[in-house]
């Protein structure tokens, strides 16, 4: 590991000032469960590491009149234990519980999971399905982006030098959301395919539908054609099957060690159809 200077600011203002002064020479450490691997392997050789572990303002889950605000360094362990999330967005609790091990979840953060911008990040599809936004802050000010505009490519997101992700902002829950993860081990494996679905029924039709996919494109993505197939329409098995086919058509998976592209595409279709049916029938347990 190349030598670096470790900074441990105790508040957000100091952290932002440090990031502004150090510019692109600095990397941000939130939980460190991916960063330490990169430092050890030499894929990152920063002059400075700015650790956010002491910045209390960035950790925690709060409710306001618009919905929930999740601090970026809230750990996956915190998410799993949050009564607010259990009540309002159980799909996020479920997604967090599928990542790593108990030990890893003690350190890993929701913001880190998003900022690493892995196409397979498990927190991304359910957050996309919930219409989450992200708040990016720097010494120059703040900007709020829909999460779908945050991801730019594998490992790439919209953060500029000097900027950090401070909060994930969730509107009030509307409808039911689930996350289905397809991987080859029950624990300690990343998703070969992730599918998050939200259906908001109003009267006999869907007022809103979201189909969000992970690990099947350069970034976590929404399958908008599939959503349009559902919105304003009444539920039926045929409609769910058509939406599932559109989701499979919209993704652009690659072949890799985990699965070939054709397989991932097939799984997207199967999980989307299975998930939509389960949401509609109110089934809680669905196999990913």
């Amino acid at each position, binding site marked *: *590991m190349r*030598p*670096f*200077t*470790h900074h*441990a600011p105790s508040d957000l203002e100091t952290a932002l000032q440090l990031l502004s002064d150090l510019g692109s020479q600095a990397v941000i*450490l939130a939980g*460190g*469960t991916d960063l*330490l*691997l990169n*430092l*050890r392997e030499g894929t990152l050789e920063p002059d400075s*590491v700015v*650790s956010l*572990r002491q910045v209390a303002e960035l950790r925690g889950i709060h409710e306001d009149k618009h919905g929930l605000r999740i601090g970026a360094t809230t750990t996956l*362990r915190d998410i799993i234990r949050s009564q607010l999330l259990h009540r309002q967005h159980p799909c996020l609790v479920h997604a967090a519980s599928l990542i*790593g*091990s*108990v*030990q*890893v979840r*003690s*350190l890993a953060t929701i913001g880190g999971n998003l900022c690493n911008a892995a196409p397979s990040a498990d927190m991304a599809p359910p957050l996309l399905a919930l219409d989450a936004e992200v708040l990016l802050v720097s010494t120059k000010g703040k900007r709020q982006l829909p999460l779908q505009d945050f991801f730019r490519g594998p490992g790439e997101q919209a953060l500029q030098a000097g900027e950090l992700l401070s909060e994930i902002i969730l509107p009030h829950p509307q409808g039911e959301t689930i996350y289905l993860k397809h991987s080859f081990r*029950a*624990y*300690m494996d990343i998703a070969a395919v992730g599918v998050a679905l939200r259906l908001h029924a109003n009267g006999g039709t869907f007022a809103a539908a979201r189909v969000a996919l992970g690990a099947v494109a350069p970034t976590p993505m929404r399958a908008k054609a599939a959503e349009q197939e559902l919105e304003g329409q009444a539920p039926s098995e045929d409609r769910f099957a058509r939406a599932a086919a559109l989701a499979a058509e919209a993704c652009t998976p690659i072949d890799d060690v985990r699965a070939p592209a054709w397989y991932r595409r097939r799984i997207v279709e199967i999980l989307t159809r299975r998930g939509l049916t389960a949401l509609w029938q109110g089934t809680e347990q669905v196999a990913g």
Partner: protein
Amino acid sequence: MKSQITLTVNGERHTLEIDSRRTLLDLLRNDLEFAGTHRGCDSGECGACTVHMNGIPVPSCMLLAADCDNTEILTVEGLQPEGDLHPVQRELIEKGGIQCGFCTPGVVMSAVALLDENPNPSEAEVREALAGNLCRCTGYAKIIEAVMSAVEDSG
């Protein structure tokens, strides 16, 4: 490149000057000579280096020591007074949940963290708590059996 940190390990306070690249695992094994915490994969996958930080199980290989300022660390050496065994340790021996022993300190720390929080876990909860602790010898059955026996002992 150096920082100074103060932390408590197994009840004793230490103030150390450390290189910024040092992990908590390096510090425990090399500086403080608590070699019961094992270095397995050094990448957060195997659980052999599990310790408690402020009561929570963490992989000590994935934490920079510089980030452990003002924390309280418990390693396998600090679980019980010298010469005494925790019920989980006793049952691991009793039930044959130890073969080569390399994963054992991590398994013990994960199991104890679970029991501290949930004294009466189901087998499924025990399996989940230990999912991040790899063992290449036992096939896990006897480890799970031992932890479940420790639950009965204390119940």
